[in-house]
C-alpha cells in the first residue's frame, strides 16, 4: 500500500503528458495531438499550453529535447519537448488512479447511463 500518493495532475498537464507519451513534439504538435486524443473536446490556446509547459519543466516532468525542423510543416526550426523519467512516473500514477476509479465504478455497476434518469 502506498503511504504517500502523488498529487492529482491538472487536466492540461495530464493531456500534455499523454501527448508526449508516444513521441517528442513541438508546441503546435502538442496542441494538435491533445485535440485529436480528446476528439476535439480539449482545445488549448498558446497561453495555457506554454504556461503549463513552463510549470512542467520547472517540476521536472518534461524537458526540451532539441531544436529541429518538422518535415511535415515548414523549414522553421522548432523546440521539441520530451517526457522525463519523473514525467513518465507521474503519468503512470495518474493513469493508475483513473483505473482504480473506473474499477470502483464497474464494481458498483455504474454504467455511463447509470444516472440518465436523474435518480
Amino acid at each position, binding site marked *: 500500500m502506498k503511504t504517500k500518493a502523488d498529487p492529482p495532475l491538472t487536466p492540461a498537464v495530464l493531456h500534455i503528458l499523454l501527448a508526449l507519451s508516444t513521441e517528442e513534439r513541438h*508546441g503546435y504538435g502538442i*496542441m494538435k495531438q491533445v485535440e485529436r486524443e480528446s476528439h476535439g473536446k480539449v482545445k488549448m490556446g498558446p497561453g495555457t499550453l506554454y*504556461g503549463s509547459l*513552463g510549470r512542467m519543466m520547472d517540476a521536472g516532468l518534461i524537458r526540451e529535447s532539441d531544436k529541429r525542423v518538422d518535415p511535415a510543416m515548414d523549414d522553421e526550426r*522548432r523546440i521539441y519537448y520530451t517526457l522525463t523519467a519523473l514525467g513518465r512516473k507521474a503519468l503512470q500514477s495518474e493513469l493508475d488512479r483513473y483505473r482504480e476509479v473506473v474499477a470502483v465504478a464497474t464494481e458498483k455497476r455504474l454504467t455511463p447511463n447509470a444516472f440518465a434518469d436523474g435518480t
Partner: protein
Amino acid sequence: MAPDRTIGRYRRWYGRLLRLYPRPFRERFGEPMAQTFSDLCRERTDANRGFHAFALGTFAETTAGIVRENVSQLMQTRAVIRWVLITAAVLAVPALAMVLNLGVPDPGSGTEGVNWGPMDFAIIGVLVLGSGLLFEYASARAGSFAHKAAIGIAVAAGLFLIWVNLAVGMIGDEGNPANLMYLFVLFVALVGASIGRFEPREASIAMFAAAGAQAVVAGIALVAGLGPELRADAFFVAAWVASGLLFRQAGIEPSPTSNTANQ
C-alpha cells in the same frame, strides 16, 4: 481567406502582446509562442474558417495567460508579503487612533478624532496594496536607481491624488463632482506609461503629459471659479515633472536591463 497583410498584422500584434509576459517567461517561450500562433494562423487560413474570431479568441486566451504568469511571478517574490505588511501598518495608524481615542482636530467639519468605517479601511487598503504591487510590477524591469525612483514618485503621486480627493477633495470638498476631472490626470499617467511598458522614454512623455493635464484641470477649475487648491495642484505638477525628469535621466543612463531587452 484572410489576406497575407491581415495575417501579418495579427502576427505583429501578437508579438507585441507577448512582450507583456514577465521577462524570464518571454525569453523562454516568446519565440515558440509566436511560432505556434503563426502555425495556428496558417491552419485557419488553409481551412478558410473564422480567422478574425480565432485571432481575437487567441489574443484573449493569451492575455489571460499573461495575467496568470505576472501574478504568479509576483506571488513568488517577497513583494506581496512586504506590501501586505506595509498596508497593515498604514491601516494600523487610524485603527489605533480609534481604539485609543486619539484625534486630530478638524476645524472644517467641527469634528474631532478618527472615525473610519469598514469601507474607509477597505478603500485605503486596496489603494496602498494596489499601488505597492503596481510599483513592484513596473520596477521589476527597471535597471537603474533613477528608473525605480521615477516609477516610485509616479505611483506615489497617483496614490496621493486619489487619497486627497477621497479625503478632502482638491476642489471644494470630497463630495464635489468637479474632482472627477482628476481621473483624467491619472488616466494620462497610467495609460501612457503602460503603453510604453514603463520604459524610460515613453514613460517620461506620459509623466510630462500628466503634469500638463494636472495644470489644465487646475486652470479649468480656476477659470470656472470652483476654487481649486492651487498649492496642492502645484505640488502634484512638480511630482509628475520630477518623475518625468527621472525617467528621462534613466533613458540616458546605460542600464544592463535595457541592453539585454533588445537582444
